[in-house]
């Protein structure tokens, strides 16, 4: 098991190297120039200013040299460069925005997994009964509704029509100032024992997390249902029943573990999908996270920021996949011993 993890970590380094090359190349070959995006029209007409700008950001050097400088800065100086748009170090900015995104995506995944698995089990047990039909409608809407539209619908419904939830931002800035912690406000609020802040943070978190996790929840519900139904008709379930177990025990102890292996794959895919949906959801709910940062970096052709965000997302991707592969091994001994 340990050797397996080490091998996977080795592969991860290779993968990240590949990603860094790709990201760097793609962002430099887009048919647009950073000076056009960042300099004013009058400055653009002055070749001297343009040349000075290009020299300042190293844009006058060949691409491979730029890449080597970039990698050297990351590995040796732990420096992801300086954002062209804001003039601040990219690493610092990522550190500022990432906790918000991490908190949002973890909660979105929690909602997706808890409700997805629960709905899937209920659907399978009450196959073709009304409750199964209702859950099917929910899960199918989850996988088919466009997330920007769903965000707007949910926001309008719960923040405006019913006004149950606050909209925008991560907390109410008139009442609280949760700075100075880890930036993961839920954890911070718990560690400070500040439960009114916790309530406020959770209230702000709920809708965007729901919208973000809705697709993955639908995916997980469908997958859990079909796997569980398949597993329930297998020979070893008949063996389990022949031992005199209650139906509940059979489902929990014998069926669920086997049914969840493919669900883990889907959860991984769902998580990656969720990172993509992040840009919309953060924009619509004014969530100060990586998604918004990435959006601003892209429209301003802020190369260091684009590369930084891409690398960060690649790392998250790879780590999530590693965790999933390890989870397989934990659940299914046939994989563990390969």
């Amino acid at each position, binding site marked *: 098991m340990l050797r397996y993890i080490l091998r996977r970590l080795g592969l991860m380094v290779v993968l990240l190297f590949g990603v860094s090359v790709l990201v760097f190349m793609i962002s430099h070959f887009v048919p647009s120039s950073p000076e056009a995006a960042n300099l004013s029209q009058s400055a653009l007409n002055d070749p001297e200013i343009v040349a000075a700008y290009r020299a300042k950001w190293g844009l006058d050097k060949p691409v491979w040299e730029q890449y080597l400088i970039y990698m050297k800065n990351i590995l040796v100086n732990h420096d992801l460069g300086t954002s062209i748009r804001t003039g601040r170090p990219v690493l610092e900015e990522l550190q500022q925005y990432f906790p918000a995104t991490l908190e949002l995506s973890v909660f979105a995944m929690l909602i997706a997994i808890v409700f997805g698995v629960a709905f899937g089990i209920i659907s399978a047990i009450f196959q073709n009964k009304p409750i199964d039909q209702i859950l099917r409608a929910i899960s199918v809407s989850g996988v088919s509704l466009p997330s920007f539209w769903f965000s707007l619908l949910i926001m309008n419904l719960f923040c405006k029509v019913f006004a149950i939830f606050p909209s925008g931002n991560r907390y109410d800035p008139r009442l609280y100032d949760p700075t100075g912690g880890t930036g993961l406000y839920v954890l911070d609020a718990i560690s400070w024992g500040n439960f009114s802040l916790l309530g406020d943070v959770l209230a702000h978190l709920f809708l965007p997390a729901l919208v973000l996790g809705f697709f993955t929840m639908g995916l997980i519900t469908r997958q859990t249902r079909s796997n569980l139904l398949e597993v329930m008709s*297998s*020979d*070893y379930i*008949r*063996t*389990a*029943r*022949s*031992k*005199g*177990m*209650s*139906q509940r025990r059979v489902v929990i*102890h*014998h069926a669920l*573990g*086997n049914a969840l292996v493919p669900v883990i794959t889907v959860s991984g895919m769902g998580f990656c999908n969720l990172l993509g949906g992040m840009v919309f959801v953060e924009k619509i709910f004014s969530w100060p996270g990586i998604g918004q940062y990435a959006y601003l970096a892209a429209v301003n052709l802020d190369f260091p920021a684009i590369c930084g965000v891409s690398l960060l997302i690649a790392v998250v991707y790879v780590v999530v996949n590693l965790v999933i592969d390890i989870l397989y091994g934990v*659940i*299914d*001994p*046939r994989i563990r*011993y390969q």
Partner: protein
Amino acid sequence: MSQLLEIEHLNIRFVNGGKETEVVSDLSLSLDRRETLGIVGESGSGKSVTSLSIMRLHPDETTRIKGAIRFEDKDLLALSEREMQDIRGNKIAMIFQEPMTSLNPIHTVGKQIAESVLLHSKATKKEAMARARQLLELCGIPDPDQRMKEYPHQLSGGMRQRVMIAIALACDPELLIADEPTTALDVTIQAQILELMKAIKKDRDMSIIMITHDLGIVYDFCDRVVVMYTGEVVESAPVKELFAAPLHPYTEGLIGALPRLGQPTERLSAIEGMVPDAGDMPQGCHFHPRCPYATERCRAEHPPLTTLPDGRQVRCFRGKGEQ
């Protein structure tokens, strides 16, 4: 009353859409304590469905069952699911045909055996594991301590079937149902598993129902045999008498189809024709299209199961009293 199990007028239908198909019709049989009964028949003869219905493991929604299955004077078909759970694995245990897929791939062998012990006794986890180890040893599994910790995929088919037997024996059942326990195994392994089952039969106060299509196993292992064809009993007799003088043409055909050592034969004989489809049963005797002795009467009239003076039963106009 020494009868452990009594099946009376069992009728099983599969429901598919609005269509019902009768797969077992008016089956009655009984089993004494410590008796080993063989149920023989081709695929589709209803023997596996019958055994599953004794355990009440048939799919509820698609199966309609009538009749009675009395076990220790309780009608199993009338028990609640909860009461049935106390009987399954405890009083009646079952071994299945497919050892490769009948064990849960994500639990250790030890856990899967101990689970049965824990379900039906007040044993602690430790005691249950000790019992599981003992059962593995009893079932002839070498290095039981190591095997306890292993997963099904690490064992061969024969070993897995031994584990299945260990699970079935976990609570000392009164009745063991073995549904083609050797069919999926290599011939040499088949012999080993059969030896093991014989040893178990000798040591324990247990009745066994052996479901098989292999007459060799029946001859070797059983006291009495019931031959099934298209969901009906066509013949029932003590094993020795059945082999010495089969009464039903189908049984005769089955015995005739067995290869014999020492008797050179060019071709193995086979019963002509095919088992008819459950939805398309021939008129009269179900076997008549394949029967070399069929008469006009067989084509028109369905023969009843007749009990002969010596206690043997046969469903044939011809067999009655002629032997």
